[in-house]
């Protein structure tokens, strides 16, 4: 596209030479409905519609009563708005023997996600820092093995981990799941932090060493204050990943300690009785609310952090 600044400069130069202007001058006029614009915005609108429509259906259905749903018009807005399905999904829906809704799963998920996110990020950031700045002997081998871990399918490790957790007496507990999440988050988080710390100027690290700071001193006083964006990225990746996890949740916990996702599945897939679509929709939205909120709150920092890692790493 034409740069208006360049255009006006050229025009000014022309002016100085001949003192009279003919033909095109100043910023080039743009057509609002040019073919390119129609194509770009058309595509965007179609894609946005495609993604927004299911969400619309979910919200609308969750606000209807069952009689209205049976009419079958899934796109029509609710005639009578009711929040009954939401209340039921949160506090009354039955999964197995418990009939206290998703709230039990929500608190389980909170108890799993918060420690997993904090512990995995703490360890991975120190890992990444050590790998980036303290090139200890065997660092490359260590890193290669760690990254290799990211490519092993989870299913392969399910059963061995069941045995390990059983042997250390953590099978079926929330802390067992916390340990599993922490370990499985390690490869990708370490890579993320290592790349970020490598992108910081090496001379800063050297200067801090000359100034007498040691391993932890440099980490806490020099590196941490410069790495907020990458911590936000790591936090978003971990919160969404762990909150949305189903496989580990269903394998390593018991009905009492099921995370929200597993409970949601049990509510939606329960075969007895009437299918309560409105309750199912409300439960699904409730479950997805946490990652959504995290995105909305820290989206800008997320983009900045990803960009920082991408360009410099």
């Amino acid at each position, binding site marked *: 596209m034409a740069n208006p600044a360049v255009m006006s400069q050229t025009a000014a130069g022309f002016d100085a030479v001949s003192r009279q202007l003919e033909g095109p001058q100043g910023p080039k006029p743009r057509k609002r409905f040019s073919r390119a614009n129609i194509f770009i915005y058309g595509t965007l609108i179609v894609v946005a519609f495609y993604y927004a429509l299911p969400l619309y259906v979910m919200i609308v259905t969750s606000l209807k009563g069952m009689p209205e749903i049976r009419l079958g018009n899934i796109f029509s807005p609710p005639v009578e708005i009711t929040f009954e399905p939401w209340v039921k999904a949160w506090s009354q829906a039955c999964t197995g023997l418990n009939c206290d809704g998703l709230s039990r799963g929500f608190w389980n998920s909170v108890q799993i996600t918060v420690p997993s996110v904090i512990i995995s990020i703490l360890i991975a950031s120190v890992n990444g820092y050590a790998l980036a700045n303290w090139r200890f002997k065997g660092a490359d081998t260590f890193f290669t093995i760690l990254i290799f871990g990211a490519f092993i399918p989870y299913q392969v490790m399910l059963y061995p981990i069941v045995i390990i957790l059983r042997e250390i007496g953590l099978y079926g507990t929330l802390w067992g799941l916390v340990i599993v999440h922490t370990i499985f988050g390690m490869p990708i988080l370490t890579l993320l932090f290592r790349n970020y710390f490598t992108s910081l100027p090496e001379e800063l690290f050297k*200067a801090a060493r000359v100034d007498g700071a040691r391993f932890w001193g440099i980490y806490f006083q020099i590196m941490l204050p410069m790495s907020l964006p990458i911590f936000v990225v790591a936090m978003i990746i971990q919160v969404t990943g762990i909150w949305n996890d189903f496989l580990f949740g269903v394998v390593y916990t018991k009905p009492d300690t099921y995370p929200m996702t597993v409970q949601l599945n049990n509510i939606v897939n329960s075969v007895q009785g009437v299918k309560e679509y409105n309750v199912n929709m409300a439960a699904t939205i409730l479950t997805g609310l946490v990652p959504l909120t995290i995105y909305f709150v820290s989206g800008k920092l997320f983009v900045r952090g990803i960009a920082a890692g991408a360009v410099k790493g």
Partner: protein
Amino acid sequence: MTANSVEIKNLDLSFGAVEVLKNLNLEIPEGEFLVLLGASGCGKSTLLNCIAGLLEVTGGQIWIKDRNVTWEEPSHRGIGMVFQSYALYPQMSVKGNLSFGLKNAKVPKVEIEERVARAAEILQIQPLLDRKPAALSGGQRQRVAIGRALVRDVDVFLFDEPLSNLDAKLRADLRVEIKRLHHKLKNTMIYVTHDQIEAMTLADRIAIMRAGKIQQLGSPDEIYNRPKTKYVAEFIGSPSMNFLNGDLTAEGFAMDGETVPMQGYKFANGAAPGPAWMGIRPEHVATGDQAQAMPYNADVTVELFEPMGADTLVWTTVAGQPFHFNLDGQHKVASGDQMKIGFDTSRSSLFDKSSEARL
């Protein structure tokens, strides 16, 4: 023992199979300003990092103030370092940057205040103390970086191309300031640069490095007038030295049918006849009447000329070989002009063809 501030003994450093520094020896007396000069990749910054303790050496010793510091932490070596990118801690104020090292060394608060104030005064950065590095200009940042070494009361200052990121004018200003600082503090300073003007103006002695070895260690005057190798002769001086291809004989330097008498030339190891290079600096070439009086003179044709203001660089051919020399910038020349040039052979440098060592 003599008061050597820094001694480097048989230093080796290799990264895997790549030898970066080879059996390097260097003694730096107390209070000297030593410049390590060389093209990129010659190992000069690596050597500085070894002295600072930021790189582990493969072999040899490093002594600072008669103390073997080969295995010491950087902060226990009595050195302060100034980096090319300034390396100021972005989240700390100028004051925070200056006091970081002192806090790590657990210096009492009152003394930190005093030392920071004194350094700020020397470097004239008192008004900037509460600012963040992002709010400083390049020159101010470099002053703060120097201040960080200054507050710690170190024995040796290490500079790693500190002026390379600055624009030309600021670089000249700060160069003078560093020189003034050295006169005032009288610390030992080791300064790495690839800029020969910085080296010539600042140094008490220059060490010219190439491929991990010191080619010549000497005063700027020695390096300029009596380069030990052809490489040093080529590296120092701008525009660079002319090299004429010929043979050293008993009568003088023979090339293209004529023999240049070498009476005034001081041979380093006696005149050994054989193929050789004769090096003449463009600024040592005389023209016109002065040329007539020189031991060697010739008539040449101007082929090209480059006006540079104070001087004009003229390109021509001497004895069938390309040759360039400086002419007063006010002297009018044109391509094709005939001119008489001459030079004093005692100011030239002769190098053996195969070993490239000074004859």
